[in-house]
């Protein structure tokens, strides 16, 4: 007895062919729906880059060229994307350029000189910054999204979100200012053993782990353990960390 008669196999072949066509059409329509825009702007060594996004991922990397490359991937709803070159660098304001539209999602990949300052802001989404060595690194997510700052050596660093984790891997310069703030994510800092800073770390839920940087002679607990203040090393950098409902963790690199 034959399991599949030849008459029965025909409809199956037709169905699978139709299904394959459907998959191809769906994939191609999705690809067509995404719009990719790439632009390059000349820049000096010490450039300032500002980006204010609505929703989406922002990735900033460094390279050896004296120019800024901006690659924006946006959905099919046409968003206005109008970078402005200024004396100090480049400004992209998606919020201002698309006033009254809050449904725009744009993903950015930025490449710029390592000595650049970056000021990044989005209402929601991820922010990733790697190897920036300029004066300022600011990453602000108004609501939800993770922040990753890796290989950072800037004298001023500000990272803030409400939901989502903040991860910092870098060094603190002497006399620098560093602020990290989250609503309920985990704030993790990975630092070299030689790092020196004055710390004010506050977590409402009393979950602060200084790991190898804890020194009971130079630090004190306040507010029943909700705040730790004190010096690590030379104590010359100022580090302020606030977390309303999440953890604060220190690691040695």
């Amino acid at each position, binding site marked *: 007895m034959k399991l599949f008669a030849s008459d029965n196999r025909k409809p199956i072949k037709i169905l699978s062919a139709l299904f394959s066509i459907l998959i191809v059409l769906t994939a191609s329509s999705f690809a067509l729906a995404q719009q990719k825009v790439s632009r390059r702007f000349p820049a000096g060594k010490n450039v300032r880059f500002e980006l204010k996004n609505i929703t989406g991922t922002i990735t900033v990397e460094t390279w050896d060229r004296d120019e800024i490359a901006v690659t924006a991937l946006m959905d099919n709803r046409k968003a206005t994307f109008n970078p402005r070159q200024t004396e100090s660098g480049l400004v992209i304001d998606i919020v201002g350029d698309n006033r009254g539209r*809050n449904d725009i999602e744009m993903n950015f990949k930025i490449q710029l000189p390592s000595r650049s300052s970056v000021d990044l802001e989005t*209402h929601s989404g991820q922010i990733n910054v790697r190897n920036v060595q300029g004066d300022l690194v600011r990453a602000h997510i108004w*609501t939800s999204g993770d922040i990753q700052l890796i290989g950072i050596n800037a004298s001023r660093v500000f990272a803030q979100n409400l939901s989502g984790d903040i991860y910092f891997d870098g060094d603190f310069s002497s006399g620098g200012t560093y602020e990290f703030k989250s609503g309920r994510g985990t704030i993790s800092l990975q630092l070299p053993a030689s790092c020196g800073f004055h710390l004010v770390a506050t977590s409402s839920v009393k979950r602060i782990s200084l790991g190898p940087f804890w020194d009971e002679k130079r630090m004190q607990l306040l507010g029943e353990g*909700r705040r730790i203040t004190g010096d690590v090393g030379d104590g010359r950098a100022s580090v302020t960390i*606030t977390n309303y*409902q999440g953890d604060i963790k220190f690691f040695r690199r």
Partner: protein
Amino acid sequence: MNCENYQLMLSDFVDGALTIEDCTRLELHLNSCPDCNDARNDLNVIVDFCREQRGVYDPVPDSHAMWVRITNLIEAEHASASHHEIHREAGWFFRMMNRSWQVSFPQLAGLVAVIILVVAMGTAVGVRRFSFSGGPQVGGLVPIPPHIEDRYRQQQQTIAYWNDRVELNKARWSPQMRETFERNMSVIDAAVDDSMKQLAINPHDTVSEDILNEAFNDKVALLKEFSDL
């Protein structure tokens, strides 16, 4: 010398007991003052009537006692007149302090009862005002210290303003954006509530106060940012 002084001399004048000088001076005045002259005539009529009626009425049985009563009445009227003057010219407190209070025992007892009742009610209202129901409460149970309560009220006004603006625009937001906003706002609200609870337990907790201030600032900043969308 004025009319009042001349009229005081009239009685002696009628009795013929004045000196010649006083008599001359009074007569000169009476010739020039119709009021005093009328008073002299009235007195003459009274004296003449008394002289004519002398011996008609029986003498009072105890004239001394009667004069004592008359004197007392006059003094009482004089005292009443003095109070009347105070009543017109002095302030309310002075008038009250110079007034004689005459109350019966039931009145006094009633007054004391009213005072006790008023004081008890005032104390109860005061305690409620400052401890339990005067200001915002965390979870409807924990009282807030007054200085925090003031700040809370001020911040609430600012927050209410920006919140109204956000609410106007919310209808235009996508459901995803609305959900994201609400979820993150609840994080800040939870931080505010936690800090308030801590401050209700320990009003001098600087850590909670710092967190509260930061949470308020974050909330206003978030509302401002989203009010334009």
